[in-house]
C-alpha cells in the first residue's frame, strides 16, 4: 500500500519534472492524493490511477491538437508557435486570478479570449505575409515567433513556476479511476468543446467555408468565399480552443511556466500527425491513441521514458503511415 502511494507521488512529480523541468510549486494536491490513496487502500491500483491521469491529459491534448490541425488545414502551415498560444491562455488566466481575483469561470473565458487574439495576431502579422512562400519558409518564421513570444513571457513572468490557487475539489473514486472534482470538470469541458467544434464544422456556414478553404483556397475564393476572412476566423477559433486548453493544462498539472506550451506543442504535433494532419476528426482519434500510449508507457515502462516513447511513436507513425492512422490510403511521399 505504502509503495503504491509513493509511486503515485513519484509519478506526478516525474510528470511535472519532465514537462517543465521544475518541481510542482505546491504539494497540497499531491498530499491530498497521497492520503486518499491510502484511504482507498487495496482497491486502487497504480495502473488505473495513471490511466486516469492519462485520460485527463489526453482530453486537453485533443483540444490542443485539433486547434493545431485547424491552423494547418486553412493555412498549410505547421505552426511551431502553437505552444505559445497555450501558454498565453494559461498566463492570462493566471493574471486574471491573482491580480483581479476573478473566479474560475471568468478566468477560463479570459484565457479563451486572449488565446484567440494571440492566434489572430500571429496569423495577421506573420502567416498571411508568408502566404506566397514555401511551407518550409512559413515554418521557419513561426519558429521565430515562438522564440519571441516565449521569451517575452519569460521577461514578464520570470522563469520561476507559478500556480493557480483554485480549489482542487475533493477526490473522487469513479469506477477504477481516482480523479479530483477539478480533473472531472476539465475532462467534461474538453469533451463539450470537442462537440462544439464538431457542430461548428458540420452545421455552420463558417464550418462549411472552412472545409472548402482547407481543400483549395484559390478555388473557394473564386467561388465567392471570402477566404482571407475565413482563415482569420478559423485562427480565432483555433486560438480560443488553444487558450482554453492551455488554461486546463495549467490547472491539471498544477504549475505554469513560460515553457509549458512548448513542451505540449510536440505532443500536439504527434497527435495531429499520428491521426492525420489537417483532418480534425482524425486528429481527435490520434490524440486519444497517444494519450493511451503515454499512459501505458508511464505504467509499464517508466514515466521517465513517457515522452521518449511518445516521440518515438511520432517517428514510427511518420515512417509507416505518414498520412496518419485514420486517413485512408498510403502515400509514397508526403509533401506539405
Amino acid at each position, binding site marked *: 500500500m505504502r509503495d503504491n502511494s509513493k509511486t503515485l507521488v513519484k509519478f506526478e512529480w516525474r510528470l511535472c519534472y*519532465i514537462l517543465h523541468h521544475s518541481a510542482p510549486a505546491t504539494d497540497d494536491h499531491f498530499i491530498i492524493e497521497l492520503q486518499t490513496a491510502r484511504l482507498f487502500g487495496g482497491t486502487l491500483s497504480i495502473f488505473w490511477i495513471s490511466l486516469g491521469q492519462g485520460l485527463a491529459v489526453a482530453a486537453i491534448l485533443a483540444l490542443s491538437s485539433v486547434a493545431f490541425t485547424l491552423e494547418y488545414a486553412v493555412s498549410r502551415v505547421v505552426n511551431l508557435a502553437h505552444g505559445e498560444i497555450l501558454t498565453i491562455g494559461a498566463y492570462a488566466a493566471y493574471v486574471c486570478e491573482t491580480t483581479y481575483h476573478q473566479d474560475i469561470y471568468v478566468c477560463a473565458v479570459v484565457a479563451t479570449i486572449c488565446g484567440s487574439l494571440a492566434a489572430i495576431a500571429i496569423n495577421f502579422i506573420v502567416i498571411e505575409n508568408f502566404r506566397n512562400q514555401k511551407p518550409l519558409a512559413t515554418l521557419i518564421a513561426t519558429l521565430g*515567433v515562438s*522564440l519571441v513570444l516565449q521569451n517575452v513571457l519569460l*521577461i514578464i513572468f*520570470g522563469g520561476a513556476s507559478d500556480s493557480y490557487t483554485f480549489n482542487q475539489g475533493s477526490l473522487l473514486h469513479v469506477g477504477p479511476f481516482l480523479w479530483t472534482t477539478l480533473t472531472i470538470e476539465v475532462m467534461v469541458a474538453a469533451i463539450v468543446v470537442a462537440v462544439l467544434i464538431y457542430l461548428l464544422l458540420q452545421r455552420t456556414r463558417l464550418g462549411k467555408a472552412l472545409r472548402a478553404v482547407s481543400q483549395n483556397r484559390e478555388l473557394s475564393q473564386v467561388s465567392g468565399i471570402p477566404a482571407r476572412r475565413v482563415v482569420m476566423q478559423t485562427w480565432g477559433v483555433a486560438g480560443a480552443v488553444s487558450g482554453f486548453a492551455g488554461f486546463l493544462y495549467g490547472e491539471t498539472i498544477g504549475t505554469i511556466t513560460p515553457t509549458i506550451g512548448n513542451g505540449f506543442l510536440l505532443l500536439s*504535433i504527434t497527435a495531429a500527425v499520428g491521426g492525420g494532419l489537417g483532418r480534425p476528426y482524425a486528429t481527435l482519434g490520434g490524440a486519444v491513441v497517444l494519450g493511451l500510449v503515454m499512459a501505458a508507457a508511464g505504467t509499464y515502462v517508466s514515466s521517465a*521514458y513517457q*515522452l521518449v516513447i511518445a516521440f518515438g511513436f511520432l*517517428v514510427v507513425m511518420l515512417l509507416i503511415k505518414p498520412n496518419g492512422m485514420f486517413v485512408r490510403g498510403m502515400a509514397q511521399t508526403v509533401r506539405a
Partner: protein
Amino acid sequence: MLQYWTAILTEATIFAILALGIDMIWGWAGDFDLSAYAYFALGVYMTIVMTVGKPKAPVVYILGWHLPYLIAVPIAVVVVVAFASIIGAIALRSLREVYFSITTLGAVWAIYYAVENYTPLFNGYNGVYGLFDPMGGSLSYNNYHYIFLGFCLLVLFLIYLVVQRLSTSAFGRMVRAVRDDERAAAVYGRNVFWAKYRTYLFGAGLAGLSGGLFAAYIGAFNPLDWKPTEIFVLYAAILVGGRGNPKGVVLGSFIVYVGFVEMTRYIPSPAARPELGPALRQILIGLLIILMMKFRPSGLLPEQLGSDGTVARRSWPERLLRSTPATNHPIAAPDDEFNEDVA
C-alpha cells in the same frame, strides 16, 4: 579583455564549423533538419567519455577510455555519422519538407529525454565532465587558450576549403539540382535519396567534429547545455550570412555570435532577474529569423547561381590550374523546342 575575446572567438569558430555542417543539410539539400544539435552533443559526449578516463562513483558513463584527444575526435565523428545514418535513413526515405522537419524534431526530443533519463549512458541529468588538455599539459592556462583558438581557426579554415571545394564540385551542383527539382533530377538519372543522404551524413560529421572541438573548450557537458532549441541561433546565423554559400555561412556565424554576445553583454541583468539578458537575446534571434526570412531570405552573401541554376563559379584549385573562364552552362543548353515545352 583579451581572454574575453579569445573565448568569444573560439566559440564562434566552433559554431561556424557546426553551421557549415547544418548549411550542407539545409542550404544545399533543402532539408530543414532540427536534430543536428543532437549530433553536436553526441560529438561532445563521445569525445569527453573517450578522453577523461574511468568514471568515479557516483558518476557513471560508458567507455571511460583514456585516448589522446586527436584520436578520440575522429572516433567520435565516426560514431556520430553512424548514428546519423540511422536517423537520416528514417527521415529521408520518403519524407520531405515539413514532414522531414517534424520527424527530426520528434527524434531530437526523444534522444534528449532518453539521454537525460538513462543515466548509464552519459550520466543523465548531471552530465559528464573532466578536465583534459589536448596539448599534453605543456602550456600555461592563457597560452593554452590562444593556441586552442589558433587550432580551431586552422580546423575551420581546412573545413571551409573542403566544403567550398565540394560546393562547387559536381556533387555540390547535383545536390542543389535535387533540392530545386527532385523530379527533374530523378529524370536525369540522379538518385535522390542517395544524394540527400550523403549530404546529411557529411553535415552530421561536421556537427560531430565541432562537438569534438567544443568538448575541449568546455570540458563539461550536461543536457542543459544542449537544449534542442539552441539550434535556432545557428539557423539565424546561416540566414544572415547566406544560405548555401559557405563563405556567407562563416561570415554569418561570426556576425551572429560576436555581434549578439557583444550586444547583449551590455544589457543589465539584475540579480533578481537573471533571465533578462538571455531572454532578450532569444527575442532578437527570433526577430532576426522572421525578418531575414521575409525580406532577405538569401542572406548577405547569396548562393551564387548561374542562369541555369547551377553553381557557376569554379573552385580555387580549378581557377589556379586552368585559365579558361568559368562557364554558366556546364550542361549543354537544351534546344529551344524543349524550352518551349517546359514553359
